[in-house]
């Protein structure tokens, strides 16, 4: 029973969602938007579960003095500080329970929550993102090796597109006369992007969508049910 009823819920909700797509009449017309809003609310409540897991795992590490426990303590403190700042003085657009506290904001230049966001969070986030510049270089060094016909295609396409989008690449072929324009690197790069690349991406999308339809159907029919866990 503990598994059967939820499976019925999944099935019926799925059927309702699919049929309301085709029924413009009330009340079906607003069901799907409503359910998406429900999802936001349910996951909004659920976020607490994550926070509790984070606190539990980290404080456990601090408690048993696991390796690097000091850092996990700092993680816990950062979490607490951010939550407190948000609850007490609010965010950019919303006031916290202590109001907006103008003096404090004036001294910091912005609300504490926003100050932390701008000066710590944002820098951490964009630096983490910027690591990609390095990794893309090391991946290129290692991966684009002429080894087989397939890997040659991979490498040539990458180099052509890369060159075609830079100033230097453009100047390689700038001397070619107008009649040979189709050999200009930027044009070759565009050709590669517009046709073969587009074809492959399109096919990936189409077949993945079929996979999604198949998986969704298996879920609705209760064939794929591992997400519900065990029990009877």
């Amino acid at each position: 029973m503990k598994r059967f009823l939820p499976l019925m819920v999944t099935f019926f909700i799925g059927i309702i969602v699919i049929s309301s797509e085709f029924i413009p009449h009330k009340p079906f017309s607003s069901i799907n938007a409503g359910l998406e809003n429900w999802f936001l609310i349910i996951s909004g409540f659920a976020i607490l579960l994550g926070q509790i897991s984070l606190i539990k795992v980290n404080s456990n590490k601090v408690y048993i003095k696991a390796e690097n426990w000091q850092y996990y303590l700092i993680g816990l403190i950062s979490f607490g500080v951010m939550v407190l700042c948000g609850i007490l003085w609010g965010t950019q657009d919303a006031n916290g329970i202590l109001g907006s506290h103008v003096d404090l904001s004036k001294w910091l230049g912005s609300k504490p929550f926003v100050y932390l966001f701008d000066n710590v969070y944002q820098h951490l986030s964009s630096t983490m993102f910027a690591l990609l510049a390095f990794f893309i270089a090391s991946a290129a060094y290692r991966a684009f090796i002429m080894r087989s016909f397939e890997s040659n295609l991979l490498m040539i396409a990458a180099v052509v597109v890369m060159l075609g989008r830079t100033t230097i690449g453009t100047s390689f072929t700038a001397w070619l006369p107008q009649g040979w324009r189709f050999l200009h690197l930027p044009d070759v790069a565009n050709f590669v992007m517009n046709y073969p690349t587009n074809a492959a991406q399109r096919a990936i999308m189409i077949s993945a969508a079929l996979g999604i339809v198949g998986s969704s159907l298996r879920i609705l029919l209760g064939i794929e049910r591992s997400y519900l866990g065990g029990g009877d």
Partner: protein
Amino acid sequence: MSTPKTSKPIDRRYIFLILLIGVALPLIFPLGFKSEVSDISRQVYQLIENTPENSIMLMSFDYDPATNTELQPMAKAIIEHAFRRNHKIIAVALWPQGVQMADQAFEYILEKYPDKKYGIDYVNMGFKTGGMVTIQAMGRNIKDVLPKDTKNTPFEEIELLRNVRNYKQIAYVISLSAGDPGLKQYVMAAHDMYKVKVSGGTTAVSTPGFIPYINDQNQLYGLLGGLKGAAEYESMIKVKGTATSGMDAQSVAHILIILFIVMGNIRAFKDKNQKA
């Protein structure tokens, strides 16, 4: 699908170090690579260059600090060009953090043009939610959509806006956009419905998606695409800004990456010979 690894790769950290130096040096000592100006960037320049003096333009800041590198230099260059042509600028933002991006850009340009006055030559009307709906509503009445500026001065008391009612008084719209809402919505609402001239700039990643709008119906008057577009604009208005040095760094990085690929192949070739 599988990709076999090659044997004993050299320490990646050399690659990281070379790339870091290769990108940092041109930022400090700009090389000034000549960048060939593309047609679509030139169209943006010509739109501003050919619009009569004292025209009013609407400039929309639809991005946040994450795409600062690519879009902020465009903002600075376009503001500078517009100031030179004595155009008046109404700044708005469809993204919340666009407001501060606008403030920073004006602050920077004012150092060069100290005689430009707030409220007369430019004004910042702040952030507006709603995207497409907001843009459409401005076609009927701008004052309803933007009742106050960021300093809480009412619309009626702002000198620049005295004769502005809707898009009819706006010579052109520039949107610098990192996604939705942004340039696309301006094309669909401001141009397609109210026939205002729309132009702007986007990140390199989303540039290809906008090219179809640059057509014989002029849905879009040219486009600045990524750092390259910004650098091209700087070269057209003869300013050496962060995009120009950024583009130098970009070019060096590209050469380096291609060199890395060549080196990788040489090493793989040697490995193979040793084994044979």
